[in-house]
């Protein structure tokens, strides 16, 4: 893969990448890091030949396996897993996806699925899989299709630590089998010792580094964990939500995805529901919000003003631009670094920007109970810190926040943890 003097321009001719030149050889693993909105996803889109879908203008020369990045020419060499991994699953069932887009036999598929812990999901509906399971299906496909170049955007975002390690190990295997892998991710520690080089993007400029330790992000993460940033409060307030021995199974399943969940949430605390991917964290939030009814047990809410920010923040937003979504609370846009995108249509916001906007919007509604699914997914440490600050401020104002997440960042603010 060769890039020569590549510059990429987005809407209103905004320069996203400036004069990037880079060679990536077969069997190399390149990690791409940078702040949210620094152009990491744009970089992958250019390599995958999908830049035109986002009206990106490319100057300079890009060669992928000797060809221009035209999908019809590079499709047989390249696997691309986008930031929203569900969008690369075309079939309603995972096993048909793997059979239809790889040369693998059912036996091979089963072996890889077992290795990735998704064997019992092969015949489920793709739509009902958790984000982490979808991500693992995508990686299984990348492994089975044995392409020369594998492009993975935010590959570990939705995964718990065990599955992150599994994915990192498989990327290492891909490299050993001769594939080139380009990974966009924020989890630097995970890729230590696996990646050959690091591409750090900042303000359109690109710097190639030899180790994850050299990136400013690494330092920021260390700083984030080193200090006790957030005040914690002694909780003695009234109970705002009560869940007792809650069990739930989806109508199509004999297996309970939630079994015996019990928790109380008191006024002005952050309660963290922690667990691996596919452990029913999102389902618990939906049960607490009242979207689903428990098969057994009960949930009682003692407040009326309640907000739910789903895992996909787009589903929370109800206005065409951040300015309209936040109304008079432009100060929140400043606090969450959204001031430059106030008039950008939400469809054009990055996934991190949408997530911050949804949390800011929920904040602006001054609810007494806020349920947030994965607030820190896909955020760089700077933006994760901003989101945590907002959650902390909400808590100090008496709002109860229940967060479902596997992100370690929550350790910094959570008052209590319920393990699932």
């Amino acid at each position, binding site marked *: 893969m060769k890039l020569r003097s590549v510059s990429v321009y987005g809407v209103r001719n905004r320069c996203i990448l400036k004069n990037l030149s880079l060679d990536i050889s077969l069997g190399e693993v390149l990690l791409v890091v940078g702040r949210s909105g620094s152009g990491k996803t744009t970089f992958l*889109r250019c390599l*995958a*030949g*999908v830049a035109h*879908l986002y009206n990106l203008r490319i100057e300079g020369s890009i060669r992928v396996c000797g060809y221009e990045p035209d*999908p*019809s020419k*590079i*499709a*047989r060499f*390249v*696997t*691309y*897993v*986008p930031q*929203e*991994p*569900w*969008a*690369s*699953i*075309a*079939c*309603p*069932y995972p*096993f*048909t996806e793997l*059979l*239809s*887009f790889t040369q693998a036999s059912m036996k091979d598929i089963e072996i890889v699925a077992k290795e990735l812990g998704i064997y019992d999901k092969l*015949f*489920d*509906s*793709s*739509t*009902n899989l958790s984000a982490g399971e979808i991500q693992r299906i995508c990686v299984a496909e990348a492994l089975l299709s044995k392409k020369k170049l594998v492009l993975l955007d935010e590959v570990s975002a939705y995964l718990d630590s065990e599955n992150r390690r599994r994915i990192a190990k498989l990327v290492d295997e891909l490299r050993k089998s001769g594939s080139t892998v380009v990974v966009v991710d924020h989890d630097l520690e995970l890729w230590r010792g696996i990646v050959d080089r690091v591409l750090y993007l900042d303000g359109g400029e690109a710097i190639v580094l030899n180790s994850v330790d050299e990136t400013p992000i690494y330092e920021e993460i260390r700083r984030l964990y080193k200090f006790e940033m957030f005040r914690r409060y002694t909780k003695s307030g009234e109970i705002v939500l009560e869940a007792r021995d809650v069990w739930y199974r989806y*109508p*199509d399943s004999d297996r309970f995805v939630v079994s015996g969940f019990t928790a109380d949430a008191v006024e002005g605390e952050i309660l963290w529901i922690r667990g691996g991917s596919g452990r029913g964290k999102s389902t618990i939030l*939906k049960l607490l*919000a*009242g*979207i689903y009814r428990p098969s057994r047990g009960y949930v009682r809410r003692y407040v009326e003003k*309640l*907000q*739910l*920010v*789903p895992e*996909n923040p*787009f*589903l*929370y*937003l*109800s*206005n*065409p631009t951040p300015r309209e979504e936040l109304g008079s609370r432009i100060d929140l846009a400043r606090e969450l670094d959204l001031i430059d995108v106030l008039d950008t249509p*939400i*469809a054009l916001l990055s996934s991190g920007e949408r997530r911050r906007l949804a949390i800011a*919007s*929920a904040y602006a*509604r001054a609810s007494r109970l806020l349920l947030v699914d994965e607030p820190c997914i896909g955020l760089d440490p700077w933006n994760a810190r901003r989101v945590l600050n907002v959650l902390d401020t909400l808590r100090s104002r008496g709002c109860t926040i229940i967060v479902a997440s596997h992100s370690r960042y929550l350790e910094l603010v959570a008052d209590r943890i319920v393990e699932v």
Partner: protein
Amino acid sequence: MSILSRAAMFVSRSLFLYGCTELRLGTNIATAMHLVATFVLASRGAPYLALPFLAVVLCYVATRSYALIPYALLLASIPGVWFAVSRFIVDLALGMQCDPLSYASIYLVFVLGALNTLYVLHATNLSELCYVVTKLTKSRELGLAPYLLWRVASKIFKDVSEMLYAHRLKGVEVWKSLGMTFVWGEEVSKLFTEGLLLKAPLFRAKAIYSRRALALQSLVLLLDTVSILLSTR
């Protein structure tokens, strides 16, 4: 939970509740033949639909898809109630004598007819459909369309249900929420285009069958034939 959100979730579960059960691994030819038989029998009266209905229920149970039955029954009741009540209102308006038995018969015909039609949706073998479309059009991209249609429809129904509920908690007006569902639909289409642009040309359609599903379909067709023979007597 709002009525709209509940309706979206209900339709989603009525159509897309299960993953790939054996119910979906028969042949579409048998399913289409059953649909034709259903229409013929429905035109001859509700009692003739009883045997095919039992066979269909047996298929749901044998393939462990029984949770679909209550959803399908409820959905099928909508046209049943609609037509029975319409007939009742027409009779009242024309000053004719009301006949509860005929209303019940209308209800049953439409419920059983709709139920058998829903069975067709639940039993469509998508892998076979993709294979046939690929062969007919000689295009891999078009061959992928049945899979993709099913995948996108189930994804949108699920997300819309969640969106409507989150918006209701937020106090958003229904018209505005419905507007956002269209924006989300557009976003989904764009993201699928991005995710599949490199993959679609490599799609290889494979028809997948199960012997057990084919045997169950044969039973359904046998009972259809018996019912048609009985109805011609």
